[in-house]
Each structure stands twice: as C-alpha cells, then as structure tokens.
C-alpha cells in the first residue's frame, strides 16, 4: 500500500494526520458550507453586509418554506424526477441490450458498432444542439419532458453501452457457453443468465445516470422552457432571476436542487463509486 500506512509512522505524525484530515475537509468543502450557512440566514444579514459571519437569526424554516411553498421549485423538482427516472430506465435498458449484443457475440462489425457508441459518447454535445432542437420541434416534443427524456436516453446510451459492454465482456464466457450447451435460447440467456449477473453494473449505472441527468443544464435550456417541463437546474436559474441578490433564498433553492443526487450518492455510495470506476477504468 502506498503511501505507507500512517499507523507505522511516529505518534506525532499520526496525530498531525488525524488533525489535518478534518481541517482539510473543511477547507475543501468551504464553499458548500458557506452556502449551507447562507441558506439559514435572514435577508437582513446580507443587506447589513454580514455575509460570512454568524447568522443573525435562524431562518431555516422560513427560507426553505419560501422555497417549497412560495415558488415553482416543487414543480421543477417534480419535473426533474419525471425526466430523470424514465431516462435512467430507458438508457439502462437499451444499453444493457446493446452491451449484451456487443459483449457476447462475435460478428464482423462488432467493434465498429461499439466504437460508434464510444465516439458518439465523447462528442461535444453542443454539436448536436441545433439539429436536435429542430428534430424535437419537428416531432412536436419541444418543451415536453418526453422530448428531453428521448434525447437523454439516446445520448446516455453511448456511455452506458460502453460501460455495459465492458462489464459483460468481463463476465466468464463459459457461463454463456454452458447455457448454450444446455439448450437455452439466446434471449433467455440474456434474461436469466446475463441480466441477473449485471445487477451491480445496473445499479451503478442507474445511480450514475441519475446524477448526470439530474444535473443536466444545457439540454434543459435548449429543449424546454418554463415550469411545465424544465428540470430543477434550469428552474434554479429562473428562481435566482426572481430572487436576485436574495442570497439566503438562492442558497436554500440551490441546496434543495442539489439534494436528490446527494441523497442518491450517500445511499448508493458503493454502487456509485463502483460505477465511476467500472465505467471508466475498464
């Protein structure tokens, strides 16, 4: 293990390390802590220039109440859920199938189809902006959650397929051969053998895609408008436009918007990190 376990170091070094840990963490998360503190401050703190001091009064309920009951934030949050969840399901389903096809079968164009997904996954998505917007308009899906969902599914499929295919490829191939010898039909192999084994990958990917989509801002502003369809990232900017310079409310709004992926992260931490590294390092 590198660096050397701190347990083998001298006692002062160990103490130094253990004190340094929380200090560095606080420094690292300072911006975030600031926002959290902002979000419970009263408005008067800001007009009086008390940005970084102790809150003048404790306004947690007021501020968050304002966000939840006096703004469109709940609607935006709901939109985000309605966009994110179907996208996750769709992208994971499509890519599981595609990953299965690319990971298990040998056919001549296999690698090229695979590369198509990989390359597509890495394009700067801005290049898609104009045509995708037009396409969505043409299909009558502009400013609908469906339009956003369809696009996200398609675009995420590139990344997910890369991930799934590598995962499936790392499964022991004899499992598939054993099933074939036993006379199991191909789609049943997918359903009964491969899919159950992909559970960790599915979970990891689902969490990962969830945060990606939840945090998407660019496509939200390209393909949707207004609280009917826009997710919370776009919502937060209009929320901010509304409460410009009302830092306490903006902070509360930002924290509310950031909460679901953060919760997701803490609940599914193991899968999440597995996802990042599986998807990436393989």
């Amino acid at each position, binding site marked *: *293990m*590198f*660096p050397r*376990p701190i347990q083998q170091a001298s006692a002062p070094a160990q103490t130094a390390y253990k004190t340094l*840990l929380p200090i560095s*963490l606080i420094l690292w*998360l300072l*911006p*975030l802590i600031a*926002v959290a503190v*902002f979000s419970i401050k009263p408005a008067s703190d800001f007009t009086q*220039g008390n*940005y*970084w001091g102790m809150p003048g009064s404790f306004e947690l309920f007021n501020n968050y109440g304002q966000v939840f009951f006096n703004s469109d934030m709940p609607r935006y949050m709901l939109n985000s859920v309605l966009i994110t969840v179907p996208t996750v399901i769709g992208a994971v389903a499509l890519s599981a*199938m*595609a990953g*299965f*096809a*690319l990971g298990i*079968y040998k056919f001549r164009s296999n690698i090229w189809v695979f*590369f*198509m*997904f*990989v*390359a*597509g996954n*890495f*394009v*700067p998505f*801005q*290049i*898609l*902006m*104009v*045509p*995708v*917007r037009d*396409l969505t308009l043409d299909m009558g899906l502009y400013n609908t959650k469906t339009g956003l969902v369809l696009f996200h599914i*398609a*675009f995420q*499929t590139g990344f997910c*397929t890369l991930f799934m295919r590598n995962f499936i490829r790392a499964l022991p191939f004899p499992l598939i051969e054993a099933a074939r010898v036993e006379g199991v*039909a191909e789609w049943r192999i997918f359903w009964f053998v491969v899919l159950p084994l992909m559970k960790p990958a599915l979970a990891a990917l689902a969490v990962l895609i969830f945060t990606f989509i*939840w*945090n998407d*801002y*660019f496509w939200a502003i*390209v393909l949707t408008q207004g609280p009917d369809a826009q997710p919370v990232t776009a919502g*937060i*900017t209009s929320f901010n436009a509304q409460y410009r310079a009302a830092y306490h409310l903006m902070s509360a709004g*930002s924290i509310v*918007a*950031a909460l679901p992926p*953060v919760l*997701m*992260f803490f609940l599914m931490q193991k899968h999440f*990190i597995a996802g*990042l*590294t599986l998807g*990436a390092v393989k």
Partner: protein
Amino acid sequence: MTVTALPDTETPKRGWYKRNEIAVTPWLFLAPAILFFAVYVIIPIFQSFSISLYDWDGLGVARFIGMENYAELMDDSAFEVSLWNNLKWLIFYLLAIPAGLFIALFLNQTVTGIRIYKSLFFFPFVLSQVVVGLVFAWFYLPNEGLLSNMLRLVGLGPVNVLGDPTWATYGIIAAGLWPQTAYCMILYLTGLNAVDPEQVEAARLDGAKGWKMLWYVIIPQLKPATFIAFVVTIIGALRSFDLISIMTNGGPFGQTRVLSFYMFEKALSEYGFRMGYGAAIAVVLFLIMLVFIAYFLWSMYREERGGR
C-alpha cells in the same frame, strides 16, 4: 439414454430464426439502441456539418453560403478569444489530475472514518454545475466574497476575479477544478487500491522511498487511472458550458467565452440568430475533440486486439 429420447432435430425443418439465431440475435438486441443513437447523435453530427454551410436564422429559409461561415470565423476576434480560452481550459483543467492524485494519496490510509472522508471529499462531483457555479460566483464576489475577505485577512486587497478579463477564465476553471479534482481523486483512489502491494514491498527492498517510490513505481502503475482521468478531463474541458453560463455569462465583454458557449450564444441566445455560424463553431469544436476521440479509440482498439 436412448437415441429416441432425443428431439428430432436433424432435419432442416427448423425455422429461419432458429437456424440463424446466433447471427440475428445481436442485431435484434442492438436495434433500439442503434436507432436512438443514430437519430439523436449520429445523424445530427452530419446535420450540423451541413447547417454550417448555410446562413439561417432558425426561423426563415436557409440560404446556402458554402464555406463563408468558416471564412468569417477566421476573422472573428470573439472566436479567437473562445479558442484561446478553450486552450486555457484544456491546459489548466488538467491540473485536476495531479490535484486528484495528491488528495488520493493523502486519503489512502486506513484510519477510522476514512470512508466518510473519502466520500465527503468526493462530494463536489455530485453537485450540479449550476450550483457549483453559483457557489463560486459568491465566493468570488468582489467585496463581499469569501475570497476577498480571506485575502483581506492577509493584507491583500480585494480582487474581482470574475470581473477582470485576465482572471475571469481562470476563476471559472478553478471552480470547475473543484468537482473535477474530486472525480480524479476517486479514480486514483481505486487505482491505488489496485496497485500490487508486493511491488511496493519489492520497491521498498530496492530502497525506493517517498517521491522516488511515487515517481518510479506508483505513478507508472496508475496509468489506467491516469488515462481515464485524462479522457474525462479533456472531455469536461471541451464541454464546459454550465459554469460559464452561470458565473459570467461569457463576460466581462466576452472574455470568458469558450467555443461551446460562443456557439450557443450565436445560435440560440437572446441576440443570437445565426444557426449556421453556430454550427460552424460546433464543427470546429468537434474537430478538436476528434483528435482526442481518435486517440482514445485507437488505444482502445489496441487493447481489444489482445482481448477475446
């Protein structure tokens, strides 16, 4: 175990699908993904190429103008600024890699609670860039901002990071480095986990210590993690949009634009009606990215040839 117990399958009575099951199945499984991907990703890339040859305001009729948009780009100082900023992003965003490595090394210990520390250090990556942008914009506020306040403590004047064209881009990059460093850190943490402990021990017997150990033994073994960190960081750098949009909206006077932001501005923003011009910028961005995509695919191809 008699022959009669076996299904009578010798004759070519089997259906076409059954006979070609292995050949057909992958395509059935691929069909939906390919369809979606083609419609929303592949075809639009080519459409963008074609739109870039038109003068089109997105409302009326498009007019074919050949390479004129590109010719204009050559002479567009805002484009030049964006290009340089993209370069800055590319270079300085890569700082996330050593920074991530550093933090990973710092955290790669087994003391109580270290898992919590690791996840909290990773935390910024989960936040939306919109939130990160807001947070850092406040952090940088010229008078009230925490940064200025801290500088004041050490006797330095307040700085207006985002208002100063020479510093604004770096300020945004620094904001971007925050989550990106967290990402690289996680990659390196898992990479460090995979470093063969016996090799570290062998190196200790060989007398390698500290930096020498890191440089000669550890870093070379972290190559896969470094490669991925490199890829995601490059992609992140070229895609940077959210932060700029939130933190400076391209300003002051357009000095923090990058290509992706500039094309959005030209094509879809309040005063932007030039779809063709925007598409041309996107194409340039795509071509830059293509260098990296090609490199990535190439190294993947090399690996694949070794595989199954």
